């Protein structure tokens, strides 16, 4: 188990490649035909910079975006990972993406140790800066949805100090409800050295991108080794990637696609600032059989380890006034069928119904016929989902329990801190395990409900981190290397292929006061009933036997208060006392008494009134 933990923690350190120049920009597009007519297009824009920003503040920014540079400089950020996603990556149908991202927004960062700022302060400032930079609601990230995962989100870049990997320096938050649109795309593409004026980014056509089945914008920043394996100094590696999944068979009814049919644009140039500009098309046997034709023919076809990639050098092919439009033609028409799911995938859903209790169930499928898999399952839930750890049940299909190897649990605090649960579980080969945990829904204060509370509250995806035995079904082997091509062709390292699987987000209904008219009706009806009940209760339980004299009028009360006619008042009191005595003697129940406070002192029971009267009677005697 330690070995796996170690792998997840330091996996990235193995993948640092040597970079020689001061800064370098690489743009690449990977297109991968997926089963059942889906096409996955993944843009990658990488900038390597042989500098460490925090070392000096007087930097001349060349390719590296200054906006990002300033942010990481100001807030002591060592690593930054942001994704804005629409739709859900369907692992069971599409395999694994180049860079996984959950629906909505996800942000995680590792901070440097710093004397000037506390990590929490830096985090708060960072989310607000990024919120402004990307026009996203990242400013809604606060302590109520920030967690510090200890297993799932280890540094992905190089770390020279083991203390710096303490969870003290990591912050993770998701906003599952965040919508992604052109307002996020525009600032995102402005960070590119060529903006969308030249190069692969000219293919960005918002209408096509946002009609797709999946769309993710990501930005990843991490320190990497300048030279490998010595690793004497580090470089900054900024990757901007965009993933889109199209289904051309639906819109056009045809299986073949071209760059134009997918993006609505032809490619006219490569970005002149890019040292490499490539389009790769994955033509491995697992994704396409042999009945296709590619025009124009690719610049180079590489095949290693079962993966076959056709690459187009954009700079060469768009030289002069040529424009590049790749046609992918299929000889046979599309027939839909069942797809073979990848080794590991998951399905998470809400169990139970009603607005009091509930459960979250996640089914994790290990389809490997012989190999057990160790995975880390992470669940981060807002405070109003009150998790009960004792209800955690992990079972295989036949009902036998599985004991998690590690449980990391941080209970939530109302309005302060979310719940976090991390489990390390061994999945037996060829099995489906079910993780189930029960929760109780909290009541919010009525001002805490959002205006459209009736849609429900979004719960973010669970994250499953695993080291897979091979990179089959994966879009690339490991993308954190210099270029996609090298990672596509990288032989699976002995440690395996690390991936994260994001499950479905959930929609939770909280108990909700009816803010509309029926609520008033209930209030009104309850008031009426209370009055009716009070009256009838009085009528049926009290037995009032004595009639009381008229109460002193308001005027006499006022007089007695002011001291006028004080004497008279005492007189009447004496008189009434005498009267009381007389009346009590002949025991006529309907004769009154005139105690100062009359009936009200008599209480709820006529009997009590009588005894009191009897007592007074004796006293008078």
């Amino acid at each position, binding site marked *: 188990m330690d070995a796996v933990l170690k792998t997840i923690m330091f996996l990235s350190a193995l993948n640092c490649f040597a970079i020689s120049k001061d800064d370098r920009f690489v743009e690449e597009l990977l297109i991968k035909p997926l089963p059942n007519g889906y096409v996955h297009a993944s843009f990658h824009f990488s900038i390597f910079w042989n500098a460490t920003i925090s070392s000096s503040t007087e930097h001349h920014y060349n390719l590296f975006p200054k906006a990002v540079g300033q942010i990481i400089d100001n807030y002591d950020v060592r690593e930054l990972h942001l994704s804005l996603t629409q739709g859900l990556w369907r692992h069971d149908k599409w395999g694994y993406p180049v860079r996984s991202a959950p629906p909505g927004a996800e942000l995680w960062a590792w901070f440097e140790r710093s004397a000037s700022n506390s990590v929490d302060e830096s985090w708060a400032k960072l989310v607000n800066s990024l919120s402004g930079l990307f026009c996203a609601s990242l400013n809604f990230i606060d302590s109520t949805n920030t967690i510090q995962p200890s297993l799932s989100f280890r540094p992905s870049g190089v770390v020279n100090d083991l203390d710096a990997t303490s969870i003290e320096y990591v912050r993770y938050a998701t906003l599952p409800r965040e919508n992604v649109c052109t307002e996020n795309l525009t600032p995102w593409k402005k960070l590119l050295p060529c903006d969308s004026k030249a190069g692969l980014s000219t293919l960005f056509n918002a209408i096509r991108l946002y*009609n797709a*089945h999946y769309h993710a914008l990501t930005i990843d920043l991490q320190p990497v080794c300048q030279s490998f394996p010595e690793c004497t100094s580090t470089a900054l590696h900024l990757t901007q990637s965009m993933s889109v999944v199209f289904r051309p068979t639906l819109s056009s009814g045809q299986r073949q696609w071209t760059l134009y049919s997918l993006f609505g644009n032809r490619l006219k140039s490569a970005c002149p600032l890019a040292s490499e500009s490539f389009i790769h098309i994955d033509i491995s046997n697992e994704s396409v059989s042999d009945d296709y034709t590619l025009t124009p023919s690719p610049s180079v076809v590489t095949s290693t380890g079962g993966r076959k990639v056709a690459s187009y050098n954009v700079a060469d092919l768009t030289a002069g006034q040529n424009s590049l439009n790749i046609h992918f033609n299929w000889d046979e028409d599309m027939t839909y069928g069942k797809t073979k799911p990848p080794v590991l995938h998951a*399905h998470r859903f809400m169990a139970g119904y009603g607005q009091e209790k509930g*459960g979250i169930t996640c089914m994790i499928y290990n389809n490997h016929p012989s190999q057990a898999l160790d995975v880390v399952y992470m669940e981060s839930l807002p405070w109003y989902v009150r998790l009960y750890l004792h209800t955690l049940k992990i079972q295989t299909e036949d009902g036998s329990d599985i004991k998690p190897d590690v449980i990391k649990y941080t209970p939530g605090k109302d309005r302060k801190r979310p719940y976090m649960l991390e489990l390390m579980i061994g999945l037996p080969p060829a099995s489906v395990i079910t993780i189930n945990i029960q929760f109780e829904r909290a009541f919010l204060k009525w001002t805490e409900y959002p205006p459209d509370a009736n849609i429900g509250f979004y719960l973010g995806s669970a994250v499953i981190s695993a080291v897979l035995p091979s990179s089959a079904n994966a879009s690339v082997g490991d993308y954190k290397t210099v270029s996609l091509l090298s990672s596509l062709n990288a032989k699976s390292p002995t440690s395996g292929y690390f991936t994260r699987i994001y499950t*479905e987000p959930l*929609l939770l209904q909280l108990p909700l006061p009816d803010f509309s008219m029926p609520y008033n009706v209930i209030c009104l009806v309850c008031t009426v009933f209370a009055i009716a009940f*009070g009256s009838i209760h*009085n009528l049926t339980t009290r037995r009032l036997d004595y009639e009381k004299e008229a109460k002193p009028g308001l005027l006499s009360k006022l007089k007695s208060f002011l001291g006028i006619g004080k004497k008279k008042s005492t007189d009447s009191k004496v008189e009434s006392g005498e009267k009381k005595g007389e009346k009590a003697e002949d025991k006529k129940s309907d004769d009154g008494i005139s105690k100062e406070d009359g009936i009200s002192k008599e209480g709820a029971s006529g009997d009590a009134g009588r005894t009191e009267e009897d007592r007074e009677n004796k006293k008078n005697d």
Partner: protein
Amino acid sequence: MGLMTSPKAQKVISSFVLKSYRPLGILLYLGAFVAILIVSSNQFSANTYISENALLPGLVDRQYKSAHDVAGYSEHLDTLKDLEGGIPSAWLEEKFQEIGLDTYSQNFSVSHPFQEADGKLTGINVFAILRAPRIAGTEAVVFSVPYRQGQTEIDLGSTSHGIALMFSLAKLFIQQTYWSKDIIFLIVDKENIGAQAWLEAYHEVSSDYIHRSPLHGRSGAIMAAVNLEMPDKRVDHLDIRIEGLNGQLPNLDLFNMVVKLCHKEGVQPTFHGEGSLSYHQLQEFFGIKYTSKTMLSNMLRQASGKPYGIHGLFLRYGVPAITLHGQPSGSTYGDQTYSVGCVMEGIFRSINNLLERFHQSFFFYVLPETRKYVSIGLYMIPVGMLLVIPTLQGLALWFLSEPKNSKPDKDGTSSQSNDKFRQHHYAIPTFIGVHVCGVLLYLSPEFFVSSFSSYFGLSSGEALVTGLAAVFTGITLLQVFNKSDQQEVEDNQEKKWMLLKCYALVWQAISLLALSMINFSLAFLVAIFTIPVFAVCRPYNNFIFSVLNKLMLLLVSPPLLLCLLIAAHDIIFKGHSISLNTIANVGSVAMGSIPSAVIDQYLFNDWTFAVVTLVLFPSWQMFWISSSVKGLDN
């Protein structure tokens, strides 16, 4: 409460209650009748309207162009039906897959204690999910069609054309990029049981009686469900069915939207067989002639607590759901498939527009017509009027049962301490006793089936009815032959029944009021039959009066009340005349409905049996006991 604490006012009130509870009771009872008619009339019921602005029904251009492929699917399915014994799940899955949907199936089987030895029910649900491109699978809408074959197909009408239309629409839907909710296409086997199995699996609720395989594909929270039963391409009208399990209703917006879309696409929508009324029909006696009948039909259906179509089971999971039942026209020309397809497209696109759940509009209503509704604010008035009767009488009996010698002695001690208080020591044990009897009755079904059916060779249904009848008769007769306590003072006997009846009346008012909040129709219909009888029943020394009184009470006892309701339904809606034949028919229907209510309780969590045994039966029994008190002096 100054008024109430003044002894004078108290006297006035009590004397008023004592004087007026009888005439007022009669007035209120008649008033309730009039009121329920009035609220159903054109004058008082309001016009329906779409409350949720986001729905925008019928605003978009329809994209369903042609239903040419429906006939092919339908014919193929019919031939497969003849070939195969059960649901042709493989073929259905294949068709969904060809369209490009994620396809799944689910096996289920049922075993419950009331099952015949050989009758193990198994089935397969087939469903496919259209993953909406614009969301991450957090919300879903269900499009369901029950699969029918053999006897159910003859009884309930075929649905193969509906399944074919579902395929045709799925082809259209998958090409669109505007979906913001996943669409689940669900073909349900074995009617309610299949739907329950699927819903339980979807929400991962465990059940002791329905065993099902887990689902390997799901979408998110279900926002609405639409169930289509289309028998043939020639459809005269679409009957919109809303009543669900335990009388639950879908949001009125869903119903209104369907009606509006039907009108738009030229398909006649009906509610309980009655279409939208014309202006003249609505003007004639305020339309009471039509509206009252439709509303009564709606109420009888709701009171039964049985789902009117498989949509009824979705409601318990907080999913507003509705059934569109196509009535075959019987004519030999015409084809309404395309129009119905457009209606369905419209429904799904409207629901797709929803930004929140259905939460506007009404959840509690009765409908006198497709474009009229009676909201809870109006229909509670007649219920309230009815329930004032037992409350007033209870109050009156409370005053009457007050001991007369309640004056204390001079020295404050009382010589006749027993007489000073009402005889709660008699009433409270009775009150508890009848409820214990109710609980026993509630728990008894399983016992009868396990012990009787094997000894006497009865079927489980018969054993159940016989057993329940035996317990009912036993408990009832126990009170008739009860020896009166001769030691008691005669005057106290008088007070005794009054107090007990007072308890019974108050308890009846409370329980029916609570019931009316959940299932208005059941509470109202029970009240309208029982309240006059309960109001006049009392013990008599005169033998003839006593027997008449007992007969009346028996007539409104829960089993006979069931028969009464069934008879009312048959006479009003099937046009049966009151004859021996009708009575026999009613008897057999009632005999059949009791075991089915018990089984539904086990399988679907139907409350009707529980309400009858735990609430209505004890309440009735208290009246029975109070009018069996003996030793009166009059």
